[in-house]
């Protein structure tokens, strides 16, 4: 593909700027950056040539949404060996801001609402917001060079799940996606958790906004407090009691968010602390005492101390060893296996604790485990992963249309559509009934029957070096004799490969 001159200049300029900015880094890093900035060529490429999935393909399967045509050959150059290349690619992905992502950013610019400030979101029809949020998520997953970042965005969107169909979340989730999930997806867990705790959408979704105690007769709303402990931090068997849930709820009384219908309009979505609704009594959370705030203190001081209880709670729960264990286990389930291997969970949890929840450092530890490296081709792709990996593998041009989102609806995996706070399941079993729609999608995609999405089968096959090369590219390894036979017998080789058992896994 020939680049338009303007874009070439932009890429050139940004790589120079990046080189200057990273001048103090190690040399290989600069090389990596330069390589990742090189434009993808729409020309012949070498697919993987091993009998089984090699480490680089494995990393692209799990830490990205699969390889595009040419990705494998391109990223192989990042190291002398496949192991070095896989490590170098993974390392570069941990610092997404340094990866040029102009194509994806250009593609999602059409979804204007994604950049609207919180207050402006209420000006839009909720359907439009939902559609742009879903389409934007899909487009970024397919197009972004920051693949691990997009994988983690999906991970945290499940971890801090919000179903936008509840109340004002219809508008507020757009801001939550941008200011909470995307802002901190590869940052620090305590920052992510704090942003989520104070997210207007989360205050709506888990009823924090109505958690108040004006007098002792009033019962605090425990919804957020419970999910904070059960889902967001310690985990259900993390060693907290019902009393802890109630005490956390008391600490968080008074935080609320301005709703629609509460004038003035320009303050809708604003998060506030109302000291009149806060319980200033003494509390004890997970064995740590939080003293009462004396009524004799000046109002500003009481206000400050009341607000500070939120910080104190988040500090207590993020430092709790169960949180490291819980997050470690979830990451290992996502990246390694449905039943996360205990050794890997320990290593990841230890890194999480050691670095106070630094997400890149935690992922680096995960990547280094033998368990991660050995468990290849065994995870059942969730429907979103299947659709995105199929679009990437075929090098499809796509506008991430609602027609594609509709396939995800049919499979019960449209972004931001999970009704309860635990997020979409991250195991194979609940998704086993989705094969019919995967096959339907494989057929529709390969026959160019999805409006706004095109696959150029002949040039894809030619660039991969023919049928065998195409199969190796799609499977990440040489096809078995049975797969090759089925490819030829089916009369619809591309659809067959995308619908095959092997492509359902990563």
């Amino acid at each position, binding site marked *: 593909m020939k680049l338009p001159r303007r874009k070439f200049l932009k890429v050139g300029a940004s790589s120079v700027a990046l080189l200057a900015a990273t001048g103090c880094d190690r040399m290989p890093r600069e090389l990596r950056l330069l390589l990742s900035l090189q434009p993808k060529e729409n020309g012949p490429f070498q697919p993987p040539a091993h009998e089984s999935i090699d480490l680089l393909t494995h990393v692209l399967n799990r830490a990205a949404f699969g390889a595009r045509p040419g990705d494998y050959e391109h990223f192989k150059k990042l190291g002398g060996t496949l192991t070095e290349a896989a490590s170098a690619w993974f390392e570069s992905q941990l610092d997404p801001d340094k990866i040029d992502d102009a194509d994806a950013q250009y593609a999602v610019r059409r979804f204007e609402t994604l950049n609207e400030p919180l207050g402006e979101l209420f000006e839009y029809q909720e359907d439009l917001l939902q559609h742009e949020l879903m389409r934007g998520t899909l487009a970024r997953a397919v197009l972004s060079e920051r693949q691990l970042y997009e994988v983690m965005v999906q991970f945290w969107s499940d971890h801090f799940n919000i179903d936008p169909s509840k109340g004002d979340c219809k508008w507020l989730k757009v801001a939550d996606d941008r200011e909470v999930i995307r802002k901190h997806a590869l940052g620090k867990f305590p920052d992510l958790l704090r942003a989520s705790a104070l997210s207007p959408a989360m205050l709506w979704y888990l009823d924090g906004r109505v958690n108040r105690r004006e007098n002792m007769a009033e019962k605090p709303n425990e919804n957020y407090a419970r999910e904070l402990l059960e889902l967001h931090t310690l985990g259900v068997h993390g060693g907290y009691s019902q009393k802890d849930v109630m005490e956390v709820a008391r600490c968080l009384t008074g935080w609320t968010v301005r709703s629609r219908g509460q004038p003035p309009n320009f303050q809708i979505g604003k998060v506030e602390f109302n000291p009149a609704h806060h319980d200033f009594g003494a509390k004890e959370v997970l064995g740590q005492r939080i003293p009462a705030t004396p009524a004799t203190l000046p109002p500003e001081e009481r206000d400050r101390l009341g607000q500070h209880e939120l910080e104190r709670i988040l500090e207590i729960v993020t430092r709790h060893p169960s949180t490291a264990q819980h997050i470690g286990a979830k990451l290992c389930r996502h990246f390694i296996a449905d039943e996360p291997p205990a050794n890997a969970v320990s290593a990841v949890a230890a890194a999480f604790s050691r670095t106070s929840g630094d997400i890149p450092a935690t992922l680096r530890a995960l990547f280094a485990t033998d368990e991660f490296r050995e468990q290849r081709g065994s995870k059942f792709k969730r429907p979103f992963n299947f659709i995105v990996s199929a679009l990437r593998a075929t090098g499809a041009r796509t506008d991430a249309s609602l027609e594609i989102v*509709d396939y995800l609806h049919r499979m019960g995996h449209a972004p931001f559509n999970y009704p309860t706070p635990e997020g979409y399941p991250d195991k194979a079993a609940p998704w086993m009934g989705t094969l019919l729609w995967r096959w339907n999608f494989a057929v529709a995609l390969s026959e160019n029957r999805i409006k706004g999405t095109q696959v150029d089968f002949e040039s894809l096959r030619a660039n991969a070096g023919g049928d065998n090369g195409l199969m190796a590219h799609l499977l990440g390894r040489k096809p078995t004799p049975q797969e090759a036979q089925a490819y030829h017998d089916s009369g619809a080789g591309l659809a067959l490969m995308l619908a095959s058992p092997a492509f359902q896994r990563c």
Partner: protein
Amino acid sequence: MADVQSFVTGNGDEQRTLVVVFLRGGADGLNMVAPLPDDGYHNARPRIAITKSKAVALDGFYGLNPLLKELEPLYRDGTLAIIHAAGSEDSTRSHFEAQDLMEHGGIIGGGWLARFLRAQSNAAAGPLAAVALGSAVPECLRGAPTATVFQSLDDFSLGDNRNRLTESLGRLYGLQPDDLGRAGRYTLDAVGRIDKLRNAKYHPANGAVYGADRFSNGLTQIARLIKARVGLQAASVDLGGWDSHFSQATVMDPLMLRLAKGLSAFCQDLGRELDRTTVVVMTEFGRRLEENSAFGTDHGRGSVMFVLGGGIQGGRVLGKWPGLTKDVLEGPGDLPVTTNYRNVLAPILERHGGAGTLGQTFPEFTFDPVRLFG
């Protein structure tokens, strides 16, 4: 993991199907099932009330609108139960708010039917576990494990002349010894059943005659899926247009005919299969007691619900009738809700395997289930 087979192929006795019919627009329960001896009713509706002479008497108190008379045999043989003064706690009288609240089961994310299906089994739901007729997933199915919007059976097929592709898929999935292989084989089986249906002209059983409208067509498709045993757990179909502010008869009469004809044909067509099927008919709110100057009625509160199907102890109008005197009317003069719709759905969900998960389906609700099943 629950066996994929039970979802995909169904095993006859166990697989039950819940059909949710939503009458969008706020259907006037008082004009469908009238309290015949209640003077409050006749006084408030001097021009549009159903008179005693025209009504189909049900039980000495209530009478069915004559346009719903096709439902009478179902009431008489016990297939149909009616719940009057039913509805939700929403008092906004806004279509959107009231539908949203009812379909979500409260101010809560996701639909009640979706939560019911998710809670049924954290394992596999078949590809055809939940369907909605029309062009969009209704809010009650928002967040379901699978929810397929469809208009015809073609939507479930891999297309015509796919024998070579399906044979090749069959061979590759046949080589897989695990859950994925099993899921693949059962899915191919379901595709085969659907293709047989698609290619055959449908003849409703037992002399059933559906209407020629979209509602009847939707029920026909659902009946076919139920009979084909493809693992259908829940289906949703809408009948919209009940917002009868103006000239109530013009608006409601054709809809009542369609509703009665469709439901009656569906029950007849299913025959014995109705034993494992439940149909529930609901609407977001009823209408004002008093007719307005345009021979219509405005947004109100309580309405009726219909429940039809196997095991129902029908032939009864259930729910507490509050009377229509000024002191009991709510707000601007509306029939109050004496039976929350969740208390009608609860026993139905129990029959459909949701006994242990009602709290997940309708959180923060204290149940007082209507005794639909005796």
